[in-house]
């Protein structure tokens, strides 16, 4: 009987082998999926059993998100956002089954599951203490952020403001309007959170979107800075005083339409670059764009960051100057009216690049990460994204943009005792629809620019007062002042 017994033994071994293989498959390969299944209630409990790290700004001095120990057995730690609305789109929220903003992008640090924190986690496990996450300090300047929010929300319109530190790429302010209170979304109750979320999701004004980085818009005349950069870079003999054609209307090649200047204004047939930008004529820039050609214009835009994938650490929607559709289209692209689509962040990067002698820095939000014990684990080192233009070209562009603020459409951005450079933009959207208003600027001009701003006001109110100069420039002015501490 021994040989069949041996076979039975092999069969038993096979059965155990199968069980072990299956358990291994479950515990390793399938584990991730099972762990994150929405029907797995553990996810929900675990979220509230972690003493989640805080989110701060101003080098830890201001708290944007904090963890409160409620003492509840099942949902012990709750999240609170003391400063609320102005910071919602950056900080995000930590809901029972989802998260957004920094809360989502930096989750592995905040909940302590990041490999950098593994030793610390092991200590927590052994000591039986609840796991403690790392804190994330943001680059935001809370004063500038609050000013930006107050001003933009005060216009009653939708829009976004982005402020950068030109030399580093630090994001000093990032505001999207309309905003909402994140606190109701952080409650440990799925049903109430879902109700609150659905209400926001159904809102026609789309408050859940961060307009600074999630959406792209026609940049209008602010794009003339990019066109000028391409034109100046093409030939080093050109400068702010180079004369260009500035007809009152420009017949577009291959079509029977001609391109007018804004409201049919006249720029006198010929103009210097600085004059053309100061009063924001359309025709000279359209001509420059056609001269430079699509490829060079696209290349110039890319050097400023257009189309380059960005994480700040949230994903940024890619900006784009649109496809090559021939000369007539190119003429309109050069003045930001064709199919160019830019995020407000991208336009802030253009201003910051010009301010920083032509070098565009990679924008970032995370200043540093502090471990649960308060020791710094990691900090962000500023990184160059690209050299958009030479320092000489940047100098010429700066002079042109100073003229815009001093003598042209951007007068509202002037700050006494500080030299400010800027460019307005009024982007026509659809026929009969009001325009978007833009303003990009930086200050102070010189070796140490402190702030570059892009203000975007979506499809302003009716008709003509929705120019960048009237609506957006005053907001940029206040934000710059806040950063400069004046």
């Amino acid at each position: 009987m021994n040989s069949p017994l041996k076979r039975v033994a092999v069969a038993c071994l096979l059965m155990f082998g199968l069980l072990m293989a299956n358990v291994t498959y479950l515990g390793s390969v399938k584990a991730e999926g099972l762990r994150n299944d929405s029907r797995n209630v553990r996810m929900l409990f675990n979220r509230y059993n972690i003493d989640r790290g805080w989110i701060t700004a101003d080098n830890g001095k201001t708290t944007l998100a904090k963890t409160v120990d409620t003492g509840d057995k099942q949902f012990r730690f709750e999240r609170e956002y003391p400063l609320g609305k102005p910071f919602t789109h950056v900080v995000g929220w930590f809901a029972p089954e989802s998260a957004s903003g920094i809360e989502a992008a930096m989750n592995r640090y905040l909940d302590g599951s990041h490999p950098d924190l593994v030793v610390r986690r092991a200590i927590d496990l052994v000591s039986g203490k609840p796991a403690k996450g790392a804190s994330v300090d943001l680059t935001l300047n809370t004063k500038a952020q609050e000013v930006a929010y107050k001003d933009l929300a005060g216009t009653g319109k939708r829009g976004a403001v982005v402020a950068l530190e030109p030399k580093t790429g630090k994001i000093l302010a990032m505001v999207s309007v309309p905003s909402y209170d994140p606190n109701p979304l952080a409650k440990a109750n799925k049903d109430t959170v879902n109700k609150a979320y659905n209400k926001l999701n159904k809102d026609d004004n789309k408050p859940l979107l961060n307009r600074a980085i999630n959406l792209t818009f026609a940049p209008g005349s602010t794009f003339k800075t990019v066109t000028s950069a391409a034109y100046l870079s093409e030939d080093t003999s050109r400068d702010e005083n180079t004369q260009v054609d500035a007809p009152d209307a420009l017949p577009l090649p291959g079509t029977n339409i001609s391109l007018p200047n804004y409201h049919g204004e006249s720029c006198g047939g010929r103009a210097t670059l600085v004059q053309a930008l100061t009063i924001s004529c359309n025709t000279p820039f359209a001509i420059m764009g056609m001269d430079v050609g699509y490829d060079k214009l696209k290349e110039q835009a890319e050097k400023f960051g257009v189309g380059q994938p960005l994480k700040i650490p949230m994903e940024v929607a890619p900006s784009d100057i649109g496809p090559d559709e021939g000369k007539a289209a190119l003429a309109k692209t050069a003045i930001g009216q064709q199919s160019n689509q830019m995020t407000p962040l991208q336009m802030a990067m253009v201003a910051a690049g010009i301010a920083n002698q032509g070098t565009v820095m990679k924008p970032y939000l995370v200043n540093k990460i502090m471990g649960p014990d308060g020791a710094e684990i990691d900090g962000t080192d500023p990184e160059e994204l690209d050299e958009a233009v030479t320092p000489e070209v940047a100098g010429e562009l700066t002079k042109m943009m100073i003229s815009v603020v001093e003598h042209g459409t951007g007068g509202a951005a002037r700050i006494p005792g500080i030299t400010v450079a800027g460019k307005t933009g009024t982007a026509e959207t659809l026929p009969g629809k009001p325009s978007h208003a833009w303003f990009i600027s930086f200050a102070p001009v010189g070796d140490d620019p402190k702030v570059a701003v892009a203000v975007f006001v979506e499809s302003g109110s009716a008709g003509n007062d929705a120019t960048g100069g009237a609506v957006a420039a005053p907001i940029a002015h206040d934000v710059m002042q806040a950063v400069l501490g004046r």
Partner: protein
Amino acid sequence: MTAKRRGAQLGMLAFAVLIVMGAYASVGLGINGKVPSGMLGYGLGLGGLMLAAYLVLAKWAPWADPLLLPLVTLVNGIGLVMIYRIELAGEHLASAANQLMWTALGVVMFSATLIALRDHRVLQRFTYTAGFAGIALLVLPMLPFIGREINGARIWVGIGPFSIQPAEFAKLALVVFFAGYLVAKRDVLALAGRRLLFIDLPRARDLGPVLITWGISLGVLVMQKDLGSSLLLFGAFVAMLYVATQRTSWVLIGILLFVGGAFLAGQIFSHVEARFNIWLHAEDPALYDAGGGSFQLMQGMFAMGSGGILGTGLGQGYPYKVPLSFSDFIFTATGEELGLTGLMAILMVYALIVERGLRTALAARDPFTKLLAGGLSFILAWQIFIIVGGVTRLIPLTGLVTPFMSAGGSALLANWMLIALLVRMSDAARRPPPQAIQDEGLTQVMQR
């Protein structure tokens, strides 16, 4: 080969008790942040219990396999710890005290079996008695007055305040019956009948017992909706038939009968069909939400997935969120808190128990012992395969207890008895033979 190895056994036993005490302590630390107050008493209780079992074994079965008792102690102890942990989480149906009491009774049963049964071959005389007893035990819950229905399954018999599951004991009785019967009839059963393709079919008239057993298994299934037990009995019988007759054709016939039976059952009984559906489409949301759907199975999978490689640690997970986490689903509960690593260790311990049992069968000197030891070892492995495979979605889920771990008195008593039989047989097999010539026990068996 035939050293007594008593010292090694005592050492391993102490080690097993220590592991269990450590686990017990970590449950307390995980849940309340302090070592449970009853830990010393608990450890001493379990230690004393196992020491008693050891002393009985040393006195009445000195040559027995030294591994069996420590291994069983370990899985029994882990089961106790898990039940204690689930009880602490507020599961009213889980009672660590009850389980400890039943463990104690199990050890008493173990000792009593060893003391009363000096020679297991006595059982051969009771072949038919065991057979009738087994069938009677299966039918018992169906009788009025004493039969009880608990959780929708009428597989219980009430004795005063206690409920027992006679099927657990029927399992043992039927294995004894199969062993006795097959040893008596194996020559006849091994006769070849017709040849079909390249398989020698047995004679048609000898199919009788197989068909009867198949009928009984199906009967159990029909009457009690106890899928697990019928699958267990049928598989055990086919395996023993194969060992007795050495004919692969029996295995093939058994598989065919089983597939046919399963197909029939699936056609006739909605609950069998439902089990198959749950197994195939567990992740389907509609089935997940349906009453009696895949909710429990998926919850068990979530538990194991959340445990991952190392587990959450005792007291740190949510194993009690799975329905019946203290009985049918104790394996997934363990998986959540001890992880893949812990489950592998437990499966390894089970595999070792089975392997020691089969060694005993190989080393035994007479066919009845070989068949009985082989049958008992196989039924243990088969039961673990059915339940663990079921809760981990390897095979369709049928309700059975995880031996030594799940909450349940009857199963503990019956399985401790099973181990006592293996210990008794291994004592006989390892005892040096009186004659000087030592042979590996193959002297009396004609190898075909």
